[in-house]
């Protein structure tokens, strides 16, 4: 009797595992899959969770989002491991385009970077107009500063500001690299009461648990621009260029731009991103920055 029960258990185990395997191994047709390499901010803020279902429903494509830093996203593009990129590291993007890895780089949206830190303001930088000046103050005050250290768009921006300030913080005791995404780095900064550079979207999305204040904002240097780039099929024939084109087109379409414009307003009292499709990079000057001077707060 016992043996029979054992056999039954075994048999049902086989049947169940067979069902599992057929379920798991039903892979999507390859040409219907688009690999999107993007920054953590678009995922952590929840924007993609809103946009992707619309795109998938409209076109029938299935988007595989790989949320990494902009640096890694572009490295994936260079190797043809991604079809389309949504990134925010303009200098690196220009290099990427110049080397022929991408086509059709188009402006999608912007928000801005901000310097956040504990309410005590250890670097005495609150309200400073110049970002470079405040970085100098942080360095001379030896205030604890957290860097992403992951070659992401934010990280590249931060390194550029240090360079402009003529300071090399690398290896300093007060300068620490987390090697994590934006959300996690903000959490670390909150926990250790440190200062960090963040994009406004991720900060607003996490604000309620952080206890970090905005210390510096509104400097033109702090503009954070997102571009969509299709990975060039010329270098890597396996790249799904039709899917990439569809996705890039979707990101700059009127409907999507409308969604971006209102995304986050109900939850945070102000939008997380500002749609810019069709504009030129140069138009995004100080004019837009002023918009951030008085963020609505709820």
């Amino acid at each position, binding site marked *: 009797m016992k043996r029979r029960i054992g056999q039954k258990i075994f048999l049902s185990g086989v049947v169940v*595992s067979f069902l*599992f*395997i057929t*379920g*798991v*191994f039903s*892979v999507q047709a*390859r040409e219907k899959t688009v*690999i999107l390499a993007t920054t*953590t901010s678009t*995922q*952590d803020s*929840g924007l993609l*969770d809103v946009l*992707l279902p619309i795109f998938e429903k409209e076109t029938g494509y*299935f988007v*595989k*989002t*790989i*949320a990494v830093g902009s640096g890694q996203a572009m490295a994936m593009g260079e*190797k*043809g*491991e991604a079809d389309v990129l949504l990134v925010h590291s303009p200098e690196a993007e220009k290099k990427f385009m110049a080397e022929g890895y991408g086509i059709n780089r188009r402006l999608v949206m912007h928000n801005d970077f901000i310097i956040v830190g504990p309410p005590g303001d250890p670097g005495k930088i609150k309200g400073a107009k110049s970002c470079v000046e405040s970085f100098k103050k942080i360095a001379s005050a030896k205030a604890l500063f957290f860097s992403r250290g992951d070659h992401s768009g934010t990280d590249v921006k931060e390194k550029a500001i240090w360079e402009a300030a003529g300071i090399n913080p690398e290896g300093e005791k007060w300068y620490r690299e987390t090697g*994590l*995404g*934006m*959300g*996690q780095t*903000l*959490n670390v900064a909150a926990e250790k009461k440190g200062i960090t550079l963040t994009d406004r979207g991720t900060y607003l*999305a*996490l604000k*309620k*648990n*952080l206890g970090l204040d905005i210390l510096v904002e509104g400097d033109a240097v702090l503009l954070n621009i997102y571009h969509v780039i299709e990975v060039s099929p010329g270098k*890597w024939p*396996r790249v799904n260029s039709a899917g990439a084109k569809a996705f890039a087109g979707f990101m700059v379409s009127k409907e999507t731009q409308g969604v971006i414009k209102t995304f986050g307003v109900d939850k945070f009292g102000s939008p997380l991103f500002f749609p810019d499709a069709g504009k030129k990079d140069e138009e995004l000057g100080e004019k837009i920055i002023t918009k951030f001077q008085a963020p609505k707060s709820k």
Partner: protein
Amino acid sequence: MDLILEGIKKAFWLLITFDPEVMGITLLSLEVSGIATLVSLLIGISTGVTVALSRFIGKRMVVSLINTGMGLPPVVVGLFVTLFLWRNGPLGFLEILYTPTAMVIAQTIIATPIVMGITLAAIQQLPQKLRLQILSLGATRLQMVWILIKEAKLPLLAAVMAGFGGVISEVGASIMVGGNIKGYSRVLTTATVLETSRGNFDVAIALGIILLLLAYLVNLILTQIQQRERPR
């Protein structure tokens, strides 16, 4: 403290309302880690028994390699599986990177040495003379192996638990080869990472609790089987 209570409440709520997304994530965790464990049992037990019962030059070397493999870091496995499955990698033509299949492969690689190592130890600790006795009673070699496996049932079920426990709780490889894609390759551990980085600590705690519950349930069932007939 509030946050933890909030998380427990959230977990309870997600469970009783059968939240479709959380259910999907939970089922996928179970599927991926379940299949990986099954496959690793097939490979691990057969190889483990073979190595335990045979004598060859360099056996100690092989055994020490297997034992090292028991501590294989998931991120390293994830990295190598990614490199192999990349479009331009040696197995790129399969086009299975960022799929649950790739996660099954990575988790199988993690679980197999664990199962193998425990099997090896379990079979080796059986008295040497038992083998001779079984054979002298007229059993074929295959029958002998089967009896030995049955003798080592307790530690072998421990191997199942260790293997399953190792992969269901693993995050490094799953996030690298699965990509943590919503509704497709997102499992409990990778979802917990994401919700933590989003600052949704209550959801993260809830997912953690569900993961613990799941691991507990599976181990409860396995322990029931293991302890059913207490030997001697």
